[in-house]
């Protein structure tokens, strides 16, 4: 893992809880203590009701592909082995949308509305990425 060459997320004060959750293989976001809305991106204030009271709450890790693109052009050398790769917007069951990769299937098998679930990838000793794979039928 020491030679991981892709960009590594650089947590800020307001996002540290999120990445610490990933490190523990748990997808978490802030939930407003006043109106119960989950929010993304992280912030000290609720964008729905402007309450400053919140808690970190676990998510189911399930969602659907809202939309996606398939990278064919190389923009960063470390991604060369991944081409073509899928960058998608995942709408979580709890509402917020996260940008991530859809993995575990061929790019041509991805579609808008596809059910997915989170998977975690430990990329360095300190950092873990959240990605999504097809949700197997119950």
């Amino acid at each position, binding site marked *: 893992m020491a030679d991981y060459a*892709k*960009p590594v997320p650089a947590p800020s004060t307001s996002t540290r809880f999120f990445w610490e959750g990933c490190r523990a293989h748990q997808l978490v976001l802030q939930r407003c203590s006043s109106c119960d809305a989950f929010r993304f991106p992280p912030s000290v204030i609720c964008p729905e009701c402007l309450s400053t009271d919140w808690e970190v709450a676990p998510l189911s890790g399930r969602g659907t592909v809202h939309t*996606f693109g*398939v*990278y064919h052009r*190389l923009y960063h050398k470390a991604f060369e082995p991944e081409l*073509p790769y899928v960058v998608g917007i995942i709408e979580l069951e709890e509402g917020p949308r996260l940008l*991530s*990769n859809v993995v575990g299937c061929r790019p041509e098998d991805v*579609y808008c509305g596809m059910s997915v679930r989170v998977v975690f990838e430990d990329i360095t000793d300190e950092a873990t990425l959240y990605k999504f794979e097809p949700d197997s039928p119950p």
Partner: protein
Amino acid sequence: MATNLRGRYAIVGVGNSPLGKVPEMSSLDLFVMAAKRAIDDAGISKDEIDGLITRGPDDVNVHHQRVGQLLGLNVDFSTSTDNGGASQILNVAMACMAIDAGMCTTVLCGYGRDAWSRTHRNETARMRVATTDPSLARQEFGPEFGLFGAPANYALAARRHMQLFGTTKEQLGSIAIAFREHAARNPEAFVRDPLTMDDYLSARLIVDPLSFYDCSIFADAAGAVIVTSLERARSLRQPPAHILGFGFGNNLRGWHHDENMVDTGARRAGETAYRMAGVSPGDIDAAQIYDCFTHMVLLQLEDYGFCEKGEGGPFAASGALTLEGRLPTNTSGGQLSEAHAEGMLQVVEGVRQVRHDYGPDRQVRDAELVLVTGHGGATVCQSALVLGRDR
């Protein structure tokens, strides 16, 4: 009750820099060259300019303080705005408002950038394009997933539109081909080679569903305009391009929020601009629509009311955007073929069309009303301008 500024102000001079590969000029050089041409076109002295509004603010762009220094200007009112490609029309509108408030009388607006040279001037520049600015490695929620480059957010939006409405690649291709045909008539356009549907469909994918010809081109380019009162315009050299309406819509909650990548802020921008101008979409004779990517044209055709939501694809594919079509669009070639100056060249072209500057090969016949649009600022800012012919 707000004052309606309809028709009280006008664009009285326009200019553009050399376009395409101009490696000997910086962004500032390109812009001051366009500004000089706009000043000459208006037939005024530079010392009559007492307002300056450019698109800023970083060193890539043309900050008003540097521009004023290079043009030898002390002015009363100046600033640089930061709404991306929506800035250009915002700047023209701010010029009208500043004049109306008595802050100044004659305002230079515009933008320029050395986007081709910056990315192709030498091997270092080319490598930077190929591998992305290393500073991105310090961000989060994007580059760690391989999100790089401008096309990605538009690919996400194009996919969503295709999913909801059955929009096709051929429909997007008809936009690129129409604008290329217009560029072929424009001797200053950067890319004028014929483009066929086969060329379009067989081009390499960038971020699927967008391929090479869906993307606007890096170019060295600048444009400038002079705004003043209609009263003052009457004594100047050119027929004034009347500023009849402008409007804005900014979906600041983000491109990924709600259906913002399908229903853009352009709808509100258009409603405001049309209401101010006292016109409806059916009155518009020609359009200059911000075309960073083909798909963005399609969205705006819908949001500015030229067709229903979801019908942008069939509308474009019907031939409506050609010089002889229902809505001749991007008549100088647009950013997909003429050159990308974040919408500034489209303001310039809108003025030239309502002035009837061209011969029959490029002039939209009987053009009385032209819509110009802007878009940018991480995809969420929209701006609209309705220009009218002097009568």
